[in-house]
């Protein structure tokens, strides 16, 4: 393998950037402040360039679908049409200052264009919100099928869940105000303690993964699946 293709170079770059960000924060050198802000903007611009990866991946899946007439290939057509249409309509206007009555002309585009606004409000929002709202039905069915008090621990879980449901439902608190107090206690004390323990664990995990990445032991993200 040529020396410039070795993994050690990107790992070293990762380490240098990470150590710089940490060093700059703790040592608080005023001369480094403008350098850091420029570097961060630089990284942000570079990161935003990755926008096309998803777009190209979708094309790589759905264009062959249509060409080879695979299963459900007709659905790929409206997918690609809407994708291109929204991208083109969403392109930013080239006018120095957009007019107050934005989007009266086809040449003034952008996400504030009436067609973009129509599509987002009446196509994407209903589709997105409704797809996720299906979870309501599934959780009711799942709670019925899977939530069994098979053991003492499961019974405790079930009891806490039912008490929270009674607290969250105004009808529950209308029947007895005590449910509100019990629910408040449950979320404020045992749940808070449990989540605090998990938060501490997450913080330790973040540090551990960070150190592993810096010393080059964590390189899974370089594989890319490609």
């Amino acid at each position, binding site marked *: 393998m040529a020396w410039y293709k070795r993994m050690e170079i*990107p790992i070293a770059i990762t380490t240098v950037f990470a150590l710089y960000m940490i060093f700059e924060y703790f040592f608080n050198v005023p001369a480094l402040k403008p350098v850091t802000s420029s570097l961060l903007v630089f990284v942000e611009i570079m990161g935003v360039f990755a926008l096309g990866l998803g777009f190209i991946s979708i094309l790589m899946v759905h264009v062959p679908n249509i060409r080879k007439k695979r299963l459900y290939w007709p659905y790929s057509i409206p997918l690609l049409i809407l994708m291109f249409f929204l991208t083109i309509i969403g392109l930013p206007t080239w006018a120095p200052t957009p007019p107050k009555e934005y989007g009266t002309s086809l040449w003034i585009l952008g996400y504030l264009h009436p067609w973009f606004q129509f599509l987002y409000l009446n196509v994407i929002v209903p589709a997105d919100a409704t797809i996720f709202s299906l979870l309501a039905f599934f959780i009711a069915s799942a709670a019925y099928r899977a939530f069994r008090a098979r053991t003492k621990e499961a019974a405790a879980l079930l009891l806490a869940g039912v008490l929270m449901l009674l607290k969250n439902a105004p009808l529950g608190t209308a029947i007895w105000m005590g449910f509100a107090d019990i629910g408040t206690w449950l979320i*404020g*004390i045992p749940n808070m*303690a449990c989540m605090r323990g998990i938060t501490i664990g997450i913080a330790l995990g973040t540090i551990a993964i960070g150190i592993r990445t810096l010393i080059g032991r964590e390189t899974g993200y370089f594989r890319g699946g490609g």
Partner: protein
Amino acid sequence: MPEIEVIFASWVAALLTLAVFSFIYKENPWFRFVEHLYIGGTIGYNMAFNIDWLVKNAFIPVFVKGQYYEYVLAFILGLLWYCRFSKRFFWLWRFPLSIMVGTGIGLAMRTVVMAQFIEQIRGTMLPLVGVPIWDPKRVAGSSLINNILIILMVIGTVSYFYFTVERKGAFKIGAEIGKWTIMLGLGAGFGNTVMARMSLAISRIGFLVKPEQQIAFLILAIVILGTIGYTSWTEKKKAA
């Protein structure tokens, strides 16, 4: 917006909502159509926003205002992301990724210790004197019973997730307390999860039953259920 556009918009939204809800009966072409539309739309507006940000914050400053020429290097490195699709130049993709990952790790690690570790430990060091034994007006507030419980439960939860030491003696008691804390905590979390999911459905069904939507709801529901019912019936007939 003129009235005809408002009516058209509400019918489109109602159609898409009902098409997705038809999935709870069975998977069908209406749902598949909306699912694909949603994927395409999501990628489309993502692209629009990203291009917009790049043009306004990167391209205009460099190519129109003549500032920040160092951004050109960011553009070149940004284009290296697309080497991911090439077998020969795949290795170039690692450079922008390594910069992003390094910066991200540095930003996260430098403050996570304070924000999510020390503050949480500090928050667990609760007073055991000078507080009432129990305050019925603030059931989750600072009281002797609550403070003792929080200290024991947090230590218990952390002990529970410590798998590299054998569970015996005091450590076993701690892990046991942790187990019960997690059961109660996750049970409470389940209650909130049900509320979250139901809220999503309430919002969508609330949209459908608005007075101005009701006609659209009824007609489109009949059309969608009718087509699904008809195709199910013809499939059963063919199978028979």
